[in-house]
């Protein structure tokens, strides 16, 4: 049996990065000027304006900066409550997305990525990226 497809394959992959082979990598970008960013884009570097941007697989591990349990949500695609985490990746960029599960987390905790099953609008099962506390 093959694994389900990824919900957002442009933003992450099942394999890890060189810097962290153990957890799904985020797919960011890097510029010759040294700027490393997420999400990926090819319009031009936000720091220097260069257009020669390379994709860069970023570590699926980092440190929790903050979390918020969301009690009110207007969108129809997901139901509150859920928890949003702000994580500084070991490779630099800060990313924000959902926490998998309901474990209490605290600023400073080590966090890692994982792929969790979600159902898209058409009812198909896919995998989406979440963070969990590192065990």
């Amino acid at each position, binding site marked *: 049996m093959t694994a389900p497809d990824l919900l957002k394959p442009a933003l992450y992959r099942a394999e890890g990065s060189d810097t962290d082979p153990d957890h799904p990598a985020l797919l960011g970008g890097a510029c010759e000027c040294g700027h490393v960013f997420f999400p990926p884009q090819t319009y031009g570097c936000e720091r220097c304006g260069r257009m020669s941007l390379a994709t860069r697989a970023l570590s699926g591990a980092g440190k929790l900066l903050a979390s*918020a349990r969301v009690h009110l949500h207007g*969108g129809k695609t997901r139901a509150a409550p859920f928890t949003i985490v702000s994580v500084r990746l070991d490779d630099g960029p800060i990313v924000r997305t959902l926490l998998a599960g309901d474990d209490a987390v605290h600023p400073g905790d080590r966090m890692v990525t994982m792929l969790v099953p979600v159902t898209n609008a058409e009812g198909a099962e896919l995998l989406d990226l979440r963070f969990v506390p590192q065990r």
Partner: protein
Amino acid sequence: MSKSLKELRPVYVVGIGLHRYQFLSDTTYVDLGLTAVRAALADANIEWPTVESAYVGRALLPMACGRPILRHLGATGIPIAHIENASASGSTAFRQACIEVASGTSDVSLALGVDKPMAIARAEGLTGIGNLADDAIAPFTHFALLADQYATQYGVRHEDIALVAVKNHRNGAKNPFAQHQKERTLDEILGGKKISGTFTSLQCTPVGEGAAAVIVASEDGIKRLGIAASRAVRVAASAGRSQKVNIDATRYDAVLTKETAEIAFRESGISPRALDIVELHDAFAVEEIEYVEAMGICGEGEAISRLKDGEFDIGGRCAVSPSGGLISMGHPIGPTGLGQIAEIARQLRGEAGSRQHAGARTGLAHMVGVGAVCYVHILQK
């Protein structure tokens, strides 16, 4: 060499007018806008045909809302330009009107902010650049995350951050133009509807509608039209900035606030600790804490203890959000930055009634907007 506003000819606020900020109603945007402009004309004691240009700040109303309002004052044919700059739309309209008068292009210019709640798309969501879960991160969650970060960094309790809302609801209760006009206890605020993180509904700005108008004039205009110079309030500085690449990438509003306020302090020669009045973008309680520190009104990590000491109360060292701020007065978007200018002008004239901060001589207005952008103005009497 480019010049700052202060180096051009002096600009004064000579007329202010508001339509009360309120929950969505049947009131048309035309009524909202006309109420504010007519009040501002009456306040300046001038007639509409003396106004030479108009800047209309709005972020939610559709294209070209200015003339459908202003034509009912008598269509004088003046240039009308619309300004969209997210939450800072009104502040930006004010800056453009000030620049126009300072440059000598006009002697009298109007800045009007007007909006009604309506669902609109944000351009950032249409860039084609992907995101992990931005649909799940509303502004209240963005700031709830920053509140968690602040509380951790400085070891403060989330209940202490909610004290901002206690003060601002107390101020707003005395403001006839405020959307919320009710004092609230800390228990009431903490016990309210949970929104995100530790924020409850009364720590978040309400969604609403309204209008605010400010008329600015040159010294020539003031003399020629017989405007009372004793009630005119000088615009001592105007600064606007947008976000750069920051190391602390999620705290861009505070970083921008520091950078923009520093420009305004330098331009005006007024130091942050000399301010009597500050109106800032307190859409969520933690913002007031972050921005008073970023502006240098108090040291980093000190805002909670200063707040508890009453330093930011009306009658304290520096009255912060005497209008009630965005939390209590409201944030109809287009009007908000102009409502701040109106409140500061009222305070500096000594006309703020029961919420008057005694002896107010200088005031600062601050807005941030998604983008992110930041605008700061300093007024002086």
